[in-house]
């Protein structure tokens, strides 16, 4: 499948693109409980393609089990890939190993969700940073200088260097994680739910810091999150994942105001608005709980989202949804509207506007006080 695409080689301008992922698949074998035989595949990521430009932020959103973390881990090459291609700065890194991979890795870093688990409990902040700096072959004096600079960039005073992780607060630990990621001067940082385990006020500190660092250093982010509001503040474009597939991808503004896939619309509608005056029951547009029975078996020919789709009924249960799988969502060219993996993207966008009243008023969500002083 997609044979030509995989072997075609890069056709894009090499200057703009930091990361390109083509038709990425990560399948895990499902083993039978008794004989440990493979009885099927769990398709954690199933044909995801995306690209990120220099200094851009692409947000990867989806609910638990949608494959967003697996995608992120595949990109930094800590997760084995079943098929597909990952190119970094125009160079295919999918099959790199050992030394060659280690050398490319400085361009590609990661920030983790759990700031505690991502730091070795026995190593001080300085040790963590120095180690990474030494690995780049820097001289001792340069290492010292860089370490101070990194701590300053993430807003930690120099004396934090001697602290062990358990002596830091959650937010400070995450700052150390960011400093470690920046230590190699990467072109792309995969941020895997970097603020989900933090309190709102600390979350805001980290988010503004990430935005500032991007402006200063021109680093690109792949920002993985389940939280749409967080994504809204930081991303330039958004990719929505649903059970391992991209259902919609496009620029943040139009994707949030005029979603073209029913799942995206449902996700946005489900975000709490903080407004008691909004009609409550009109929020639920995904049918059925995400129980195992909810998804049709692998034999089904049609759209896999159909049995949870709110638009399916409204569109009069179209034949095509049952017969043919929807086209994949592919990153639109700049200035174009989002691409949705749906047979009826325009109809859905119109329906969403009339049927989901909350979508019409995204601004009602703001719990945002004006400047008071």
């Amino acid at each position: 499948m997609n044979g030509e695409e995989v072997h075609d080689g890069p056709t894009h301008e090499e200057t703009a693109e930091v990361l390109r992922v083509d038709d990425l698949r990560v399948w895990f074998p499902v083993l039978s409980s008794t004989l440990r035989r493979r009885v099927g595949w769990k398709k954690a990521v199933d044909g995801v393609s995306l690209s990120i430009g220099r200094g851009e932020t692409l947000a990867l959103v989806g609910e638990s089990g949608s494959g967003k973390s697996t995608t992120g881990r595949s990109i930094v090459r800590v997760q084995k890939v079943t098929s597909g291609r990952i190119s970094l700065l125009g160079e295919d890194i999918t099959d790199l190993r050992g030394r060659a991979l280690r050398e490319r890795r400085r361009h590609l870093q990661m920030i983790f969700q759990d700031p505690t688990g991502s730091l070795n409990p026995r190593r001080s902040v300085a040790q963590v940073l120095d180690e990474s700096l030494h690995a780049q072959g820097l001289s001792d004096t340069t290492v010292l200088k860089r370490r101070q600079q990194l701590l300053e960039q993430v807003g930690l005073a120099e004396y934090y260097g001697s602290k062990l992780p358990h002596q830091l607060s959650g937010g400070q630990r995450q700052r150390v994680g960011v400093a470690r990621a920046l230590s190699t001067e990467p072109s792309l940082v995969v941020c895997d739910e970097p603020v989900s385990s933090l309190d709102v006020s600390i979350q805001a500190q980290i988010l503004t810091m990430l935005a500032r660092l991007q402006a200063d250093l021109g680093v690109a982010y792949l920002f993985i999150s389940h939280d749409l509001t967080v994504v809204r503040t930081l991303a330039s474009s958004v990719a929505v994942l649903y059970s391992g597939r991209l259902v919609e991808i496009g620029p943040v503004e139009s994707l949030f105001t005029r979603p073209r896939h029913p799942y995206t619309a449902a996700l946005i509608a489900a975000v709490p608005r903080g407004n008691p005056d909004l009609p409550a029951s009109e929020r639920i547009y995904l049918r059925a709980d995400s129980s195992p029975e909810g998804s049709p078996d692998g034999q089904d020919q049609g759209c896999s989202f159909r049995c949870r789709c709110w638009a399916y009924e409204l569109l009069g249960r179209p034949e095509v949804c049952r017969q043919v799988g929807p086209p994949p969502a592919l990153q639109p060219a700049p200035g174009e509207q989002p691409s949705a993996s749906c047979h009826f993207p325009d109809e859905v966008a119109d329906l969403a506007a009339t049927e989901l009243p909350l979508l019409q008023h995204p601004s009602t969500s703001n719990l945002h006080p004006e400047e008071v002083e």
Partner: protein
Amino acid sequence: MTQAETTSTDAKMRSRHGWDVLRAVASNRLALCALVFTAALLVLAFIGPLVLPTSPYHTDLNNLDSPPSWSHLFGTDRSGRDVFTRVVYATRTSLTVGFTSVAIYIVIGTVLGTVAGYFGGIVDAVVSRTVDALLSIPLLLLATVFVAFLRPGVVTVILVIGLLGWPATTRLARAETLSLRESDFIVAARVTGLTPTRIMRTHVLPNLVATLIVVASLGVGIAMLLEAALGFLGLGIKPPTPSLGVMITEAKNSLVLRNSPWIWMPPSAVLALLVMAVNVVGDALRDALAPTSDGGAL
């Protein structure tokens, strides 16, 4: 030289922690007792032979099998040798056997286990199957075969225990490495471009230390008991070389057992207390080395 710099910061960290760890261990009263006891025995066992007036082989023909007295603190055995002197020498032998053999197998086990756990695949399969095979044969049986090909003696006993004891440690180190490998900080280390050797040395090993200390402290006890058992079976250290095992063996004779308790009780008591003390110190060390303990405040 870049390596050297980092290693020196490591060393600084470690020495800064040295006192904290000791203070933490000492804050636990039981552990403090055990620590003092072990230290006292160590001093006695290694300084004693330099200052004691008599040799463990010297026979006092005027005092055969005599109960404790001022001239013979723990009495004499049936050959007229001073029991106290022999216990001191025997403790030295047992401690040497215990610590050296455990050191050998901890090193082997940790290296094999870490490598198997970190790399997985074929390496892991080979190591794991060997471990399974070795664990399925009783150690004492293996030791018997081993000793049959070598001359019995202290070095042989150390080699037997050291070279056969590693499977359990390997299995443990492998399991811990497997779970550590999945943790975010190891993933982060891989992503920053560190080499596998470096990751294993600075990120995996330090986090295995706590477990290894417990294993080692249990191991030292077991090794000393094993030495005694081998001696008891006549496969270990041969008399007249004093070892705790050899001395306890003398109680095989029911006459000695019943009528001359001073011959077997001191070595047995030393062995039992020593095994206990080492275990207690090991436990306390593990707690003290936990990264969250600020010199044992928690």
